[in-house]
């Protein structure tokens, strides 16, 4: 029999440190597969965030550079500006990209930086232990919203992708999910397209991926993918937010 | 020889250019020079001033708390610097705008009607170079030849067409001194 599904070349054979059922590692695999299929492994530089994916450089078998919390878009900008022949992507969680790094992200998008952002939205601060994130939905219980997020006190969940869609320099922005094989395949297509936008030198691209965090949501992995589809998707509907032809 | 000069006036009188031209001329003569413009909000509005030091030796402080020479293009400038001029120094006053007398007798005063002379030349804007020409004729900080040459550096590029009129203004200031002092 022929092997039809195996680990992509751009993903090291290092076991993931992520919790059981975590969406990060699925997304790592998808990004790696896209890098392999586009044949860009040897000219890609990745910039992971602070947060659970801070150790992403242990998994991707491409050149990887750390960034301070929230600053991945700026670091990727620096790399890409001085070496336009490289393919630069940032890999950022919701706290990283939509709270502390909002300014860097919006301005990178608005300048039309030729970088690709992978935005993992799991509605919670994972690595620090489950605090409220900018994308925590109203009513959601976190360690810093023990009675649930109350918008009039804690603010509303932030639609960062929609905001980035308004920026003139963004070319392609799509929100997807990794809650089922169907969505995972859609996500891979979106990631591929986002990298293509960069390869075609067209501008800023971003894929927001709704991703389960069973540990901090205090759910089983199976419950967590259901929560993504039944609850998160009502607040953050998957769709193509911007696609400049 | 170490001579410190302060140029002061209001924005638009070309005060900074006077100092810059003197500093360039000093450099062309292989002297040590510093040019220190006042920096701050006032540069863009009301008063402007700069300090130029020309020396045969390395210049320690570019600041002049008691300059040998002060050029005041309007009365507020005179008021500001009249007590700072070194005893035995010279104050150059734009007599078109300054009618007040200097309340000191240990400082020499040279009056130059810079606005009138510029107007006679048909270009009101060259009053600064008229004053500078007069000042250099009196002080001899640099040679008049170097100063005239410095104008070419100062007005490099887009302003090249203005070189000649500015050089003529320098000469006019020097001639005024020759005729009146």
């Amino acid at each position, binding site marked *: 029999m022929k092997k039809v599904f195996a680990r992509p070349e751009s993903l090291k054979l290092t076991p993931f440190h992520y919790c059981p059922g975590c969406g990060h590692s699925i997304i790592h695999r998808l990004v790696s597969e896209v890098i392999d299929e586009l044949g860009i*492994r*040897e*000219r*890609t*530089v990745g*910039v992971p965030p602070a947060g659970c994916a*801070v*150790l992403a*450089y*242990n998994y*991707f*078998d*491409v*050149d*990887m*550079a*750390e*960034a*301070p919390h929230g*600053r991945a*878009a*700026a*670091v*990727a*900008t*620096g*790399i*890409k*500006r*001085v*070496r336009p022949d*490289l*393919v*630069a992507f940032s890999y950022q969680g919701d706290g990283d990209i939509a709270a502390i790094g909002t*300014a*860097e992200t*919006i*301005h990178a998008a608005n300048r039309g930086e030729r970088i690709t952002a992978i935005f993992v939205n799991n509605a919670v601060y994972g690595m620090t232990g489950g605090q409220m994130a900018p994308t925590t939905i109203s009513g959601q219980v976190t360690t810093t919203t023990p009675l649930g997020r109350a918008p009039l006190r804690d603010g509303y969940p932030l639609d960062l992708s929609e905001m980035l869609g308004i920026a003139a320099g963004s070319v392609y922005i799509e929100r997807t999910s990794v809650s089922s094989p169907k969505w995972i395949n859609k996500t891979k297509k979106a990631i591929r397209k986002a990298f293509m936008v960069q390869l075609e030198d067209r501008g800023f691209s971003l894929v927001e991926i709704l991703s389960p965090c069973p540990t901090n949501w205090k759910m089983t992995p199976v419950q967590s993918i259901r929560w993504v589809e039944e609850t998160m998707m009502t607040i953050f509907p998957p769709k193509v937010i911007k696609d400049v032809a | 020889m170490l001579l410190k000069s302060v140029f002061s006036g209001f924005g638009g009188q070309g005060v900074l250019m006077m100092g*810059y031209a003197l*500093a*360039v001329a000093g*450099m*062309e003569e*292989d002297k*040590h*020079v*510093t*040019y*220190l*413009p006042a*920096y*701050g909000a006032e540069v863009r509005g009301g008063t402007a001033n700069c300090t130029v030091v020309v020396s045969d030796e390395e*210049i*320690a*402080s*570019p*600041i002049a*708390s*008691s300059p040998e020479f002060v050029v005041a293009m309007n009365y507020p400038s005179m008021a500001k610097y009249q007590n700072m001029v070194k005893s035995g120094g010279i104050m150059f006053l734009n007599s078109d705008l300054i009618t007040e007398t200097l309340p000191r007798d240990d400082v020499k005063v040279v009056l130059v009607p810079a606005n009138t002379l510029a107007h006679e030349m048909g270009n009101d804007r060259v009053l600064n170079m008229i004053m500078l020409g007069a000042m250099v004729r009196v002080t001899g900080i640099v040679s008049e030849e170097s100063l005239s040459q410095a104008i070419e*550096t100062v007005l490099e590029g887009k302003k090249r067409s203005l070189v000649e009129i500015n050089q003529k203004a320098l000469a006019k200031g020097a001639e005024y001194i020759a005729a009146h002092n």
Partner: protein
Amino acid sequence: MSETKEKKKDKKLMRGSHVLGEAAIRAGCRAYFGYPITPQNELPEYMAEQFAQMPDAVFLQAESELASINMVMGASIAGARVMTSSSSPGISLKQEGISYIAGMELPAVIVNMMRGGPGLGNIAPAQGDYFQATKGGGHGDYRLIVLAPAYGQEIADMTRQAFDLADKYRNPVMILGDGMLGQMMEPVVFPDPIDPAQLPAKPWTLTGCKGRPSRIIRSLWLDVNREEELNWRLVRKYEAITAEVVDQEMYLAEDAELIIVAYGTAARIAKGGVQRARAMGIKVGLFRPKTLWPYPSEPLARLADQVDEIIVFEMSTGQMVEDVRLAVEGRCRVSFYGRPGGVVATPEEISRVISSTHHRAHPKKVAGGRASGGSRLTVVG
């Protein structure tokens, strides 16, 4: 004859901030990221104007100092000779990135044209950021190489040196100046330009893993033993820098009974004060650290054996004076004279401080004046 004329042509009267920019470009700098703040805007403006003519060069006005220092980080990761500049409050914002750059051992040149503070303060020349520059500044256990030019020519030379040191030691280098150094024009002769393509290759940069294993540039070491190892390795690097980089100017120090220590703009004022005091017959000299970190402690300690007292003059309430005391280790008295907040002292004022100090040390020799009011004169035994 023609040779001297050629030389004259090379000499340019330029403001300090433009000198710095031109020297950076001649050092092979092809990337600049910054955010406007007075009094250093002439530097980014110069870079923007020059880079506009250079297709391979990158100028980017970022959305904040935070963003710009992280762009510097990225450009350095990708191998560029890169620079950013700011003034005191902006440098505070950059500290996060500077700490990362130090931890990731990346070369970068950071210019701080200090102004009066704390807080928003004012745009006048001051030296209140000495601690921030020399003691780390951001979080963690690190040092910047800190160069303090005082003359236009030195701005040109130190800028070249800054890029070379940054690359050599893979360490951020700060050039510490102020608005006066940035605005003042002095004649400068520039070193010949370097073609960035001719610079030695940096074998650690991230340029895509073609033909080699993939690399990681990081500062995160969750394993405490590895983090400790990194910290000690940095210390060994800092020791090597200290041994090789320390530099200072000594002026009329051979026979001095009294030494004034000052850096940057303050040192030029102090030099004027020394000249005046010498004319009054006081045997005073100037010690001017050209590197603030590493600090020239040893040569200063040797001077301390020779003199009765050291006066430290800073345009602050007293920061470098602590390093002087550490260097002197009680060999002589150390007193301090400061004018913070953007006040620029005059050489006359400094000569009065010198003469009153001298009078205290040698009451019979010379009758001196008094230090002007308003500032603090402290003496430490």
